[in-house]
């Protein structure tokens, strides 16, 4: 993004959204953050699928999952759905 704000003549007409929302970090909304017990986690990947914010990524090269705290809103769905209860919600 340029330092100067674009004028109305330069922006996309009719309110076309032009920036990807991945540049808008929603991670600061959270009160609780998920913490994972590496021993208990079986890498079933259910949390990756159920996360409403896409904030849990499957890293193929590490064959492990990774939380993206930039987007996690701390809802706790991952902790609630974890079959082995490997995720706990801690105050940030």
């Amino acid at each position, binding site marked *: 993004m340029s330092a100067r704000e674009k004028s109305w003549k330069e*922006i*996309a007409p009719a*309110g076309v*959204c*032009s*920036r*990807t*929302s*991945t*540049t*808008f*970090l*929603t991670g600061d*909304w*959270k009160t609780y953050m998920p913490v994972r017990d590496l021993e208990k986690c079986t890498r*079933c*990947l*259910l949390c*990756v*699928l*159920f*996360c*409403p*914010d*896409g*904030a849990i990524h*499957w890293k*193929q090269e590490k064959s492990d999952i990774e939380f*993206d705290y*930039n*987007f996690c*809103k*701390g*809802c*706790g*769905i991952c*902790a*609630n*759905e974890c079959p082995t209860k490997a995720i706990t*919600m801690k105050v940030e």
Partner: protein
Amino acid sequence: MEMAKQEWKFTTKDIAEKPDLFLSGHRACAGCVPTTVLRLIMKALRGPTIVTQATGCMEVVSSIYPYTSWAVPWLHTAFETAAANASGIEAALKALKRKGRLKHEHVDVIAIAGDGGTYDIGFQALSGAVERGHDFLFVLYDNEAYMNTGIQRSGGTPKGAATTTSPAGTAIPGKLEYKKPIADIMVAHEIPYVATASPYYWRDLLEKVRKGLEVEGPAFLHVLAPCPRGWRSDQAKSIEYSRLAVETCVFPLWEAVNGQYQLSVASKLIALAPQKKRPVTDYLQGQGRFRHLFSPQNKHLLEDFQRITDERWRRLLAKCGVSAKP
């Protein structure tokens, strides 16, 4: 378009590895299941796709100017027009193809709307679009009220639920009318594919999305999407409610291919072993919008909720050709 009609097989890892087409950074509330539904749906695409959306929570949170959460071509116009947009897009694609100007062999069209944009406001457009036989998939994410504007009752709100326009109090005990059986109404339109899905049974959901895209002609998918703000429930438990709705048979999973009803696995297991069917109180408990049903003077409402659930379950079993056991 001819495409190999082989069954789509996938593992959890395949789905987890697929890049999101509904991106992070959207402004939905914490614990919002409709966004989970959209993420999952966008992982079931088979090729180039255009998404069109009616006004609703998911349209608002994903496109707050100048940000967009969509990594596919996406169009929003007005509240009632999801299906009308989809028919226009489909007709335009057909015309481009006829003139040889379409680069792709086939482009799928998905229309997404909430329960307000489907049950009430968008219904005539939907009914017309499926009657004209446009080839598109209509996804209804049903959070059972107008959550976007502050939890007003819709045609999809179940009886007894407290909303801001049907508040539970001394005058009325929540909404007075039953939930409209929208999926059955769509089957009555004699369209090739109608299904219900729940995000907890994500594999079932993905398969149904793919089937809906593959079928020639209109397809309708009804997905239950719990909303922790509007349901006054614990945000961590929203996916759990999508499971309980199926286990209590409040929201059974089925599909109707060319009008032939068929139970999906999760509900079929309950039909075969009726002792697994849980009482509706398991589902209603913990939801603030149903809290008043548990007070002694509203006991009859709770019984009525169980009665209509059993009644609809029995009717569904009859349609699926499964004999109802006590």
